């Protein structure tokens, strides 16, 4: 029996977006990253419809992590006090496509560092590595509104991905990201309606849709990943259906969420296998699972987990017999 034709009938696609600028565009990046562009659901149609390959942004914290389990901190112990060295290790040893500078230390309940510190760290990391940067605030609205505009200014012209902005707190960072020519991360709490609303608010301020990346929030494997999974699938379907307000590439925070999980970090767990394998595999599994739903940028932490996910992406994207 002949196989029937399958027509998808999708009219839209995911926006394509370039991060980082080299000297010809006024920046200092030695490599740039393009994400998005998918014209189908994950594995729908042909590999040519899949757009750009997903990329990994490795987390670098602005201060030594206070609460990372030993298995996770171990590989970074030598560099954890120096974000520049840490970033170098991510790029040179682990092959990170992007470095995500996470300003944990700025949070008033953590190290309560000031804007000057954040700017210094940003400049040091920009000098240390050539990949584009993701600049991610502490999550405290007031403090981020003081600090992130200065961080944005310190990286002006480098076309970073900066965030996050939320429904309740978007104005100051959106304005400065627009002025400094960065791309912006819009955040929503696993709620597709709020996700769209933030994008509308931000674009009402004149921020171009093609410079937005969405962050839908992430659930760790075993701890709500199914919510993130379905929201990412619905976001992709909305984009393919032609909804311009949902057509952005998506970022997810796998590193933080997966290392909160008991299964990743519990030392005494008979029958679960050693933590040094289990923790990184839990992180890699969370990332691979979300890749099936359609995400474009994955924030990750452990070098072994990054290696597993990179190998998976490489095998998948290099290996079509039709290509």
């Amino acid at each position, binding site marked *: *029996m002949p196989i029937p034709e*399958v027509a998808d009938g999708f009219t839209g696609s995911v926006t394509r977006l370039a991060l980082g600028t080299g000297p010809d565009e006024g920046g200092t990046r030695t490599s740039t990253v393009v994400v998005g562009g998918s014209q189908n659901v*994950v594995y729908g149609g042909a*590999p040519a419809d899949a757009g750009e390959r997903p990329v990994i942004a490795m987390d670098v914290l602005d201060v030594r992590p206070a609460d990372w389990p030993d298995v996770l901190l171990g590989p970074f112990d030598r560099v954890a006090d120096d974000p520049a060295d840490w970033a170098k290790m991510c790029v040179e040893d682990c092959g990170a496509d992007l470095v995500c500078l996470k300003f944990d230390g700025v949070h008033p309940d953590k190290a309560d560092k000031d804007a000057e510190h954040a700017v210094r760290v940003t400049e040091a990391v920009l000098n240390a590595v050539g990949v584009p940067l993701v600049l991610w605030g502490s999550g405290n609205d007031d403090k981020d509104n003081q600090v992130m505009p200065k961080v944005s200014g310190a990286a002006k012209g480098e076309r970073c991905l900066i965030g996050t902005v939320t429904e309740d707190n978007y104005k100051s960072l959106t304005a400065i990201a627009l002025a400094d020519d960065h791309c912006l991360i819009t955040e929503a709490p696993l709620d597709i309606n709020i996700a769209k609303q933030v994008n509308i608010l931000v674009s009402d301020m004149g921020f171009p849709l093609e410079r937005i990346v969405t962050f839908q929030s992430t659930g760790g494997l075993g701890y709500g990943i*199914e919510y993130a999974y379905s929201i990412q699938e619905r976001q992709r379907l909305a984009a393919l259906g032609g909804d311009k307000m949902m057509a952005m590439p998506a970022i997810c925070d796998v590193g933080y969420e997966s290392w909160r999980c008991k299964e990743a970090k519990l030392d005494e767990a008979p029958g679960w296998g050693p933590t040094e*394998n289990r923790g990184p595999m839990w992180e890699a599994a969370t990332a691979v699972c979300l890749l099936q739903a359609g995400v474009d940028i994955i924030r990750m932490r452990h070098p*072994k987990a990054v290696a597993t996910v990179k190998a998976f992406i490489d095998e998948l994207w290099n290996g079509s017999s039709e290509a």
Partner: protein
Amino acid sequence: MALTGLEIFKLLPKGNCKKCGMPTCLAFAMQLAQKRAKLEDCPLVSEEAKEKLAAAAAPPMRRIVFGSGEHQVQVGQETVLFRHEEKFHSPTAVATTVSDTLTGEALTDRLNTAKALQFERVGTQIGIKAIAVCNESGSAEAFAKTCAAVKESCDLALILVSDLPEAMAAAVKQTAQCVPLLAGARTNTADGMAKIAKDAGCPLVARAGSLEELVELSEKIKAAGVEDIVLNLEAPTLSDQLYGLSRMRVLSLKKVFRPLGYPTLSFVGDGEATRQGAIAISLACKYSGIVVLDTAEPWVNLPLLTAVMNVFSDPQKPVQVEPKVYAIGEPDENSPVMFTTNFSLTYYTVESDVENSRVPSYILVVDTEGTSVLTAYSGDKLNEKTVAQAMTKHGVEDLVKHRKLIIPGYVAVMSGKLEEATNWEVMVGPRECSMLPKYLQEVWK
């Protein structure tokens, strides 16, 4: 695919005898198409018409069952491409390989390792569902012997993997009563394998390198009398396999293309354990009904099984945790007590942040029918009465000497009434539980 009224009309006697209660056969056909009438109401319908109508009503993806007793495995009968459209019905069955080159202690060790791949999560047992015995020896005798040994020492369902009909026949003779899945038939062994499957009443895997070959093979096996078929696309690359599986899913569900209307099985193959784990998760999410792994490492299988559990959960039904008191760390009579709801996501977030605080605590989980704090409060499922009842029911008074209860910041408004209802001092906790560690370390002290 459902037939239209006119298509059904063509199959009816067209005599307008009115015995069905309708004025004409066409009217009856229209009612049938809308499922408002039953075919049995027509006393004159031909056997041929009955068959055709039944076939059209069959689900687009067949349900396949193998194994026996409480270890029976069900795959197939999927109805959607995306879980949010309805739900996925048959969680991907994970299987572990056992080579027939293993004997004695090595075989026992391997089986024990595989058997240990059972875990408990959120009160539910998750684990591998089958052992795939692989005929690596190339010997029919060794294969049959190993299959018999595995059957003896392990209750899990069996998948018999051999390309040699004589080895398959010998192994089936040893194991037929527990209904193994036979993997399987290729184009050159289709006749022999189909006969074995048909005679033993076992489902059969069709194995081919492309969709076109797979279609041809599944039709051939079906024509040979085997109804229960599982499809194994052995694509040359991972990309080909994943795109192929997606295309098969679309063809079976959206086009009701019967030759591909069966569940699928995939071998993850060898390679590093981490690679197997990543690929297996991808295959499980994207439409492989059974995945077979060589690695029996628990640290690979646990995340894989968890991913299957999560992705195959019902999106309409919030996952709940059991309402009771959870002890985090080793709390004593002076430890803090707080409550939250039994929506799993809410509970896990609170649990994780309490763990991070390193302050041993009790978390009382109030039954709010799986809703979050604010939703439960708005729906009146979380109020001073439900909290007080939960405290009594789970004996919170006996756990601690103090009488201080930490409540979620979002329901600070219920403090007064709750103090009256319980006679406990209410302490309003943070709104976001990421602030719990600081709260427990500083405010609680």
